[in-house]
């Protein structure tokens, strides 16, 4: 059974069709990458999966449940956690608090006044330390998030998504704007995470994608033009055309 499935998912903004009848299946336990030139509709596809954008038509299924009509927060509660392409953190809160909010959301996302048992709060705290250690931000725990370097903010961005302990981890260009050194760090992290999470990854750096993912889907002008394991994608003529232009 696929963890996530989209059926003919289409998102139109006026005359522009950003996502065009995309049918996609994400198998549990895999790293599934979506690549494609700028403006191919990758992030819009992400947003339609997480609920930030309403699809014009088509459906989204998570664990065989139709989630097309659910809101962003309801989907997050089901176990879809994401990071954003443009850093999207809580700037005036500490790094610890940033991740804590994510871990806490798994325990008590409702606003109804209800006491959270002390034990579960301790569990939340443990989870935060675990995540911070994993991404290597423990020494920054009590800094304001806004004070971090861009590279550390990208790590925090991933850490917040991890704090949710999501069933599906969606990473939108985690290496955007990173130096080669930082990119290597992020790559190592994603490889580590691949053992424990189902990951849907948007990435521009092809060599990274080839290295970490089992399945690659290629988008071009909103459409899926190819899908398969890295070796197959490397030699696919349609993909080469999309990237290099018609010869």
């Amino acid at each position: 059974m696929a963890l996530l499935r989209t059926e003919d998912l289409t998102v139109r903004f006026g005359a522009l069709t950003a996502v065009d009848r995309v049918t996609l299946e994400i198998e549990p336990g895999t790293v599934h990458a979506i690549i494609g030139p700028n403006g191919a509709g990758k992030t819009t596809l992400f947003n339609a999966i997480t609920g930030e954008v309403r699809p014009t038509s088509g459906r989204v299924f998570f664990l065989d449940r139709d989630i097309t009509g659910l809101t962003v927060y309801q989907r997050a509660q089901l176990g879809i956690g994401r990071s954003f392409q443009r850093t999207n953190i809580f700037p005036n809160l500490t790094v610890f608090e940033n991740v804590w909010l994510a871990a806490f959301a798994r325990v008590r996302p409702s606003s109804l006044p209800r006491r959270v048992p002390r034990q579960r709060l301790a569990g939340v705290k443990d989870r935060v330390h675990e995540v911070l250690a994993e991404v290597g931000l423990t020494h920054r725990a009590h800094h304001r998030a806004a004070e971090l370097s861009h590279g550390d903010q990208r790590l925090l961005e991933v850490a917040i998504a991890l704090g949710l302990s999501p069933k599906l981890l969606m990473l939108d260009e985690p290496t955007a704007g990173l130096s080669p050194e930082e990119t290597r760090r992020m790559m190592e992290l994603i490889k580590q995470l691949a053992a424990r999470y189902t990951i849907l990854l948007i990435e521009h750096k092809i060599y990274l994608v080839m290295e970490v993912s089992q399945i690659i889907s290629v988008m071009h002008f909103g459409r899926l033009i190819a899908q398969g394991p890295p070796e197959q994608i490397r030699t696919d003529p349609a993909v080469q055309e999309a990237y290099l232009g018609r010869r």
Partner: protein
Amino acid sequence: MVRLRPRLGPLTPWVLLGVALLVLPDLMRTTVATEVWIFAILALAFNLLLGYTGLLSFGQATFFGAGAYTAGLLLIHQRVHPLVALAAAALAGGLVAAVVGYLCIRRVGLYFIMLTFAFNLMAYFIVYQASSITGGVDGLPGVPRPPVNLYFVAWDIRPGVAYYLFVSLIFFLSALVLKRVVDSPLGLVFQAIRENEARAAALGYNTWAFKRLAFVSSGAFSGLAGALYGMLFGIVPIDTIYWVTSGNIVFMTLIGGTGSFFGPIIGAIFFIWLAETVSVRWERWPLIFGLVFVFVIFFFRGGFVEVWRRLRAVLPKSGRGVWPDYGPSKD
């Protein structure tokens, strides 16, 4: 071990607050001092919205007025226990805020502000029209201040000083409760919404529900303050529900500082003192307030609290350098 936040924060501000509660009646008339703490409750309740949740409500007088009229009517017609009047006022403030919040919360920014303002005007005209019940423009006179009957003792709060103590007590308890709220996990979720609402939703928080909760809590405390106000003057003037009062609450909170829990209290002290003391001698007192306000907004965006913070950064401290955080390391 990492603690999220200390339970009630450092002790110093609480001690300062205690001192302020004790000395304020010596610095101004008892009535004015009492009014200060009533408005301090309002400012704290408003800052739960603006400072912590990031919601600029320009209609806090709606809830203040709802509480004042509810308590006033109950005290006049039913002669209820003062604590019952307070509870009813808080309930009324919360209920009205629930209705207004339900209709406003989904709008953001300027639209949210204007909607809260519009509902404030509506509430005002309802009270204005229903003059047979509310007294209309003349206000609702004859609000009594019955003794606070506890099982073993009846506390007469009619004398000014006794009522000051009563209000101080209610204020202090309100401040404790609100401080607990903002330092709790709930308070952190409020701040997350202020910082980045979209991301908070992506974590699974129903941000509308949390904003409504903040709105209702703020309304309840504002209603409570309204009851205390009516009992202070023995009348509920229609000004309690007039939009100018909403504006004043915004001003005093901003001038005190939205970035800290205690800042708005300083703003309330300053504003009420200016309004009640200076206005007697010079009727153009809002000019002073306006100038101070402009000065603060230009140079000290964090309000009075920021003046203090900057002073502390410049003043030498024993055992530390003048610039403790930026100086060269000693080793």
